[in-house]
């Protein structure tokens, strides 16, 4: 089975916006459209945020406020590993009687991988295990916030003007107040979805967006333009002669992970809060159904919905579904536009192959009747429960070294087990089978001379 161990041997063609060939283990199968989908023809959405070390869930709004960082966990500034809190006992004078000393616990951060500790950069030990550690403040925060506010206001104004111009041309009964273009302008400066929310219950009118704006902040924000300096600080005199203390120099990666300060010396590398990871859900672009939806709990790796292609589409003639499936193989004709990679001609068996259904209890059921399919021994090599092995003839077309690749089309019947939207009136009608055709490319390996 090429599915898990040698993934690139058998490639399936996906008809999306781009023609993508990829192994079945990376594909999804939309059972509403009855088509294969690859990662490039689905839309990726953020499902939830969580911290990879403390596995704490965080709602999206809170994550945005904290700049997608965890509040409790830190990263080592030296090797980017997760920092752990260690405790030591230090003697400290009692508050009542300064002459006696008692053992108090002091906590410091340490990295198990590169042995960095918070004492290396001069951070004092804290008396609480968590919550005592602060990131140093960026001296430019105020200026940056002011700039962000100014540009947000500018973006709003631009958007309003653009909307006004568009609305002057539109008829009043058109429901869309926001064009696609203005939404992108709003997102340009990170305004978020504030302007897109409508009052609940009110109909979406073309002028609703404008009225939302006028009630809110009208104050003008002025910023001072940045001032250019004529003189720059000169380099120190021993710049070329001073010997470099190599352990003190930070690497580019260490420096750029702290864009606020970008310290050149290792003694200024402060730990940063750990970045959050996301769980994503996938959605088919044509029918808007979810193909993959993970569980909300960060400790769970299961999925609420997971429509992986391996569970629905035929593998190299192992039948994953529980019904009997009929398969026909058809070679690609001359001039087939999808047949670009094959370097050999293939003669596939022309008869229809029948595969038994997958039966999980078959291994344990000793009294099962042997399956009675009349197999032509020239075509079928072996048959075992839901697997079948068959012969194909391959004639390589080229003599040079390279992999022999053949392509053909598999046509099989598929029963959609999704619940019908409208219950059929005749009672329990059996689900109809539809025929699916997939273009498959099989890489057989190099030619041995």
């Amino acid at each position, binding site marked *: 089975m090429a599915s898990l161990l040698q993934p690139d041997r058998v490639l399936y063609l996906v008809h999306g916006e781009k023609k993508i060939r990829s192994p079945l283990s990376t594909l999804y199968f939309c059972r509403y459209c009855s088509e294969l989908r690859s990662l490039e023809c689905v839309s990726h959405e953020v499902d939830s945020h969580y911290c990879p070390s403390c596995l704490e869930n965080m709602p999206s709004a809170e994550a945005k406020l904290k700049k997608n960082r965890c509040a409790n966990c830190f990263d080592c500034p030296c*090797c980017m590993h997760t920092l752990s809190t260690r405790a030591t006992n230090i003697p400290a004078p009692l508050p009542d009687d300064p002459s006696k000393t008692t053992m108090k616990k002091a906590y410091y951060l340490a990295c198990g*991988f*590169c042995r960095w*500790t918070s004492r290396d950069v001069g951070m004092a030990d804290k008396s609480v295990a968590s919550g005592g550690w602060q990131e140093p403040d960026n001296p430019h925060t105020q200026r940056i916030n002011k700039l962000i506010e100014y540009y947000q206001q500018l973006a709003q104004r631009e958007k309003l003007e653009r909307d006004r111009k568009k609305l002057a041309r539109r008829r009043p009964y058109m429901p869309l107040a926001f064009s696609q273009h203005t939404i992108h302008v709003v997102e340009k400066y990170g305004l978020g979805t504030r302007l897109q929310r409508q009052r609940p219950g009110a109909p979406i009118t073309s002028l609703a967006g404008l009225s939302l704006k006028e009630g809110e902040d009208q104050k003008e924000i002025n910023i001072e333009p940045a001032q250019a300096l004529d003189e720059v600080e000169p380099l120190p005199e021993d710049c070329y002669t001073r010997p470099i203390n190599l*352990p003190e120099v930070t690497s580019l990666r260490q420096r750029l992970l702290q864009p606020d300060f970008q310290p050149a010396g290792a003694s200024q590398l402060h730990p940063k809060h750990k970045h959050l990871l996301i769980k994503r859900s996938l959605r088919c672009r044509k029918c808007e159904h979810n193909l993959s939806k993970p569980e909300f709990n960060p400790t769970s790796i299961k999925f609420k919905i997971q429509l992986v292609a391996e569970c629905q589409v035929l593998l190299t003639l192992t039948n994953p579904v529980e019904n009997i499936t009929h398969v026909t193989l058809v070679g690609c004709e001359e001039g087939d536009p999808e047949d670009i990679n094959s370097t050999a001609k293939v003669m596939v068996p022309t008869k229809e192959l029948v595969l038994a259904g997958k039966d999980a209890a078959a291994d344990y059921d000793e009294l099962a009747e042997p399956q009675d399919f009349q197999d032509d021994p020239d075509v079928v090599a072996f048959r075992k429960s839901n697997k079948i092995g068959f012969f194909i003839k391959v004639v390589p077309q080229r003599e040079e070294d390279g992999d022999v690749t053949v392509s053909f089309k598999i046509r099989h019947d598929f029963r959609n087990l999704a619940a019908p939207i409208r219950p059929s009136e005749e009672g329990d009608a059996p689900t109809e089978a539809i025929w699916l055709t997939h273009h498959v490319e099989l890489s057989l390996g190099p030619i041995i001379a």
Partner: protein
Amino acid sequence: LGDTKSPLIAKIAAGAVVCVESEIRGEVTIGARTVVHPKARIIAEAGPIVIGEGNLIEEQALIINSYPENIAPDSEGVEPKTMTIGINNVFEVGCMSQALKIGDNNVIESKADLGRNMILTSGCIIGACCQVNTCEVIPENTVIFGSGCQRRVQTERPQPQTLQLDFLMKILPNYHHMKKTVKTTSAVTPAKN
């Protein structure tokens, strides 16, 4: 190993805990308060090995004083060089050390690999799976870590593992037989292997 000049015995000082299942070959001296776990191997092929006090040598660690690669074992004129290991070092599980001179308070983490021409001073930490085979003296308090063997200097040396040593010296004799130690005052008696 058939050299008649040096006696083929291991001198284990009193207070050291050396398990019988460890393999000690050649002229090896082990100081007091050192713990050698079962399945550790200390092999003095091309010269004697002197191990100081308070060291912790864990399972499957290999400390070997072997011949350099370009010299055949039987060639004449090869002087045996002594390998010296200081005090309070830790050789973690599965590491291999051929370094001729190791100072104090070093930690050689699991599956690390030290070449013959290295000299460790004190407070050095050779990270897990790091293979270091250069011809240099590692400065004090250096940490070598990562797949690319990056280095950095730490501000404080690693603490000696006194708690762990005390614990092991109490517990190991309950479950393993120990090799015989020599009395410090009397003459050298052959140790039972």
